[in-house]
């Protein structure tokens, strides 16, 4: 068979080409140029502010002059531990964040499962849009809408009234309801992605080996979806931990965020606010370590 060679005109040596060739020969330079901006942002704006926060947590406020004294000490953390009010606020925040996470996981699983494994592509796309839709409107508007629902002469009591029932009113239950509503999409979407990634053949193999649907769900689907649940729970848990607007609007009790807000704005005690703000960070770190111990990231 005759061999044919194709000849191309030699490429022109324009400056752009030479630069591209230089980058090709020096992949490290190329990588540095590519990452300089995002890395700079990450280090300065993101880690930098975290570092300032962490440092500030060890300063203190001079009680007489109300000036910030920058010699490091643990007195802020001491205050947080000693004062039962702060303890109670921390426990309440974590408790509600956990309740919201569990609620969202339970609500999200069937929806995500249906989207990933049952629905036709049309229905699936429709559901994705429906789930994302609440995210298009402002957070504040949504919480105010819940105020309207939950308030004493609100829609809920109006609907329950004929049955002799009464809504939960403002308080911890209201917070739990509103947070669960607000963060549900953040649980559904990662879970949907995680469930979609499980190959059909694994479920078929389980059935082929004699397992019924329930067993396949317990031994195959659930363990393989666990990393996705953890990913979603990081959102629901941390978003709840850090919030201060919802507690303000639908309850009369305080969250960690409310204390931080009050100390920065009203009391002007930045060090104490910083110390309290590190608490959710520590809780999240503990939570992630626990999830890792439970093997949540093993099949990633």
């Amino acid at each position, binding site marked *: *068979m005759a061999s044919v060679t194709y000849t191309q005109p030699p490429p022109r040596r324009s400056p752009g080409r030479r630069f591209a060739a230089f980058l090709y020969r020096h992949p490290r330079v190329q990588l540095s140029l590519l990452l300089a901006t995002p890395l700079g942002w990450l280090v300065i704006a993101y880690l930098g502010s975290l570092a300032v926060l962490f440092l500030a947590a060890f300063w203190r406020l001079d009680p007489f002059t109300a000036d910030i004294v920058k010699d490091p000490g643990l007195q802020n953390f001491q205050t947080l531990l000693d004062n039962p009010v702060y303890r109670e606020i921390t426990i309440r925040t974590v408790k509600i964040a956990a309740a919201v996470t569990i609620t969202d996981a339970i609500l999200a699983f069937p929806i995500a499962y249906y989207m990933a494994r049952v629905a036709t592509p049309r229905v699936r796309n429709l559901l994705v849009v429906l789930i994302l839709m609440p995210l298009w409107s402002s957070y504040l508007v949504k919480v105010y809408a819940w105020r309207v629902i939950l308030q004493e002469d609100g829609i809920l009591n109006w609907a329950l009234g004929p049955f002799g029932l009464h809504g939960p009113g403002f308080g911890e239950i209201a917070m739990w309801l509103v947070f669960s509503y607000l963060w549900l999409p953040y649980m559904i979407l990662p879970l949907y992605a995680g469930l979609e990634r499980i*190959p059909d*053949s*694994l479920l078929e*193999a389980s*059935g*082929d*080996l*004699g397992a019924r649907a329930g067993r396949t769900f317990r031994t195959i689907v659930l*363990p393989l979806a666990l990393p996705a649940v953890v990913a979603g729970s990081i959102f629901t848990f941390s978003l709840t931990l850090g919030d201060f607007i919802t507690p303000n609007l639908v309850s009369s009790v305080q969250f960690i965020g409310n204390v931080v807000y009050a100390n920065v704005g009203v009391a002007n005690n930045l060090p104490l606010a910083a110390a309290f703000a590190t608490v959710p960070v520590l809780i999240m770190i503990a939570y992630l370590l626990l999830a890792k111990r439970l093997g949540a990231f093993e099949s990633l």
Partner: protein
Amino acid sequence: MSTQARERPSEAGEDAPQPAADVRLEGVRKSFGDVVAVDGVDLEIDQGEFFSLLGPSGSGKTTLLRIIAGFERPDDGTVWLADVDVTNKAPFDRDVNTVFQDYALFPHMSISENVEYGLKVKGVGKQERRSRAEEALQMVRLPGYGKRKPSQLSGGQRQRVALARAIVNRPRVLLLDEPLGALDLKLREEMQIELKRIQQEVGITFVYVTHDQEEALTMSDRLAVFNNGLIEQIAAPADVYERPATEFVAGFVGVSNVLEREGQRFVVRPEKIRILEQGEEPYAGAHVESGQVRDVVYVGMVTRYIVDLEAGGQLTVVRQNLETSSQDVLEARGAQVRLEWRPEQTYEIGERGQMEEDE
């Protein structure tokens, strides 16, 4: 001869009850929307047989296998496993196991947990489970790999685990969907021998899907050649190769050497054709035709000549490189040659499912 004439087992007047076939399909049909994947298949597979479903991609082999496993329900027809109608039974209620093309090992379980899965589901005790799993791993030559995770194994090793996981349950029928498709040639050839050995060792009926004609010919006791959701021929490998029932089978199994002479179509296998030397006398009674070498393909051990015949048509001729070098054979391009073959080695082909020998 009528080895290929298929008989419907359901026809009236059936004689005395035969020993139960392990798998029996009657008029099985399945379509996906407009696509007819399996278009009315009748098939009987005997106990202990190594049976292959051979056909090009998209011909419906996988769909048929999935119907036997219970992952798809046929639109029409009946599936029998050892004389039990399982058409409407779920996969977990059928005494078959599948080796999936992508192996489908559970990534979060160790190798031994994978292999023990079927036994655990059936409630087999821990002690027995352990020893049977280890035995199965031994059989596929992976003893002591139980603690690893699937991700720590190579493709060939995963394939063996998938086999062990299925075989440890001692199913009546093992279904394999192109189990060696993802392996490289050398490993594939090794595994072909291994699979055959294991099948003979355990005596389980194997239903083996492949698009590789060589694989089907070397491994099977019998095979069914698929085309467009239909079976073109069911026969032993040698019969399929030497006496293809249809033009499709002739072309798919081996090289398509089909000629039409005096209104008859027939097949001549390339290795049965001889190129006559200059001035050489043909055998008495041999059929001789002359033509021009259009192309020469040197493939190491043999050379393939593609010859345009004067009387019309084209033949591929294979010749061993006994004394010729690559240089010599490549110079044959464009040369005038005479070809001879024995008429008794040609096979007339007719419509689907029929065939007469050209004698």
